[in-house]
């Protein structure tokens, strides 16, 4: 997952997953030759992100991990709080946050971008995409990311096989101080249903989540073979894109209208 001498960027939100991952990597770094740094995104969510960043900064300082903070305000000229849209703010937030993370990780010379997705996140996403019939997204939840574009920083998900409960326990046992507040814009009703279903199945049939991930991983090489090996370049910003213009640019245009 991480090669010798590699420079890894870690996407940190201040929640348990990303801070447990930072803690884990700082321990691993004592034994393995690689370096890493935390990247944080301030979307501009008053009363939420300011607190989670404050918590993250404290925890990262305690672990001796250096970090950089990028904001929607500085990169795009607005706060997420100011976005007026008919669709959920989460869709803008997700796309624009990933856009900055990939761009900054690349510009800063990192070769991998580590994210804190845990087993629960992964199987929820797999099942949601399957239930929605979204083949394109369904084929993109794998254990590896190909370098589909020279400007794309492949993501790694070291906690992908670890249940959310165990990540929480890891943070608790190692006294990692993380933020537990809930984003005021969180409206993931579909994910909530899938999460409840999977937790119910897991309590009745232990190992359900592992089995689902394992089944997906066995299927993954076949899914990967059907997805494009190269993606195009956004005509507007030059970043990697599936179509002529990337989702981030399309969203930014829509918001400026």
């Amino acid at each position: 997952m991480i090669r010798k001498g590699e420079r890894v960027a870690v996407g940190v939100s201040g929640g348990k997953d990303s801070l447990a991952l930072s803690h884990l990597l700082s321990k691993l770094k004592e034994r393995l030759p690689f370096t890493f740094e935390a990247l944080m995104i301030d979307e501009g969510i008053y009363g939420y992100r300011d607190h989670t960043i404050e918590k993250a900064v404290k925890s990262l300082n305690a672990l001796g991990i250096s970090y950089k903070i990028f904001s929607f305000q500085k990169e795009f000229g607005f706060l997420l709080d100011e976005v007026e849209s008919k669709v959920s703010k989460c869709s803008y937030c997700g796309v624009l946050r990933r856009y900055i993370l990939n761009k900054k990780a690349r510009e800063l010379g990192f070769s991998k971008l580590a994210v804190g997705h845990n087993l629960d996140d992964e199987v929820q996403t797999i099942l949601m995409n399957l239930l929605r019939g979204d083949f394109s997204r369904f084929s993109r939840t794998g254990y590896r990311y190909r370098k589909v574009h020279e400007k794309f920083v492949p993501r790694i998900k070291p906690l992908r096989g670890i249940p959310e409960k165990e990540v929480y326990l890891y943070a608790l046992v190692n006294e990692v101080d993380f933020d537990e507040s809930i984003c005021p814009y969180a409206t993931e009703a579909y994910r909530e249903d899938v999460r409840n279903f999977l937790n119910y199945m897991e309590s009745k049939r232990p190992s359900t989540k592992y089995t689902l991930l394992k089944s997906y991983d066995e299927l993954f090489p076949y899914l990967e073979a059907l997805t494009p090996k190269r993606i195009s370049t956004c005509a507007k910003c030059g970043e990697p894109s599936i179509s002529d213009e990337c989702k981030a640019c399309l969203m930014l245009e829509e918001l400026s209208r």
Partner: protein
Amino acid sequence: MRIKLRLLREGALREVEGEDISEILEKVGFNTSSVILRRNGEVIIEEEVLDGDLVEVIPVVSGG
């Protein structure tokens, strides 16, 4: 079994009865996958819960 649950996120104390801890957790909208249990400040596994215990219920789901 009958135990007292301190629901951390809600800040509520509830006394709940059920066949076992799974059933008790379900009655307050949780299950064994979605919470961590703590007794006297120490994390315990579900099987360690005893009749009459006061148990803290910590939801593990993150906030997005």
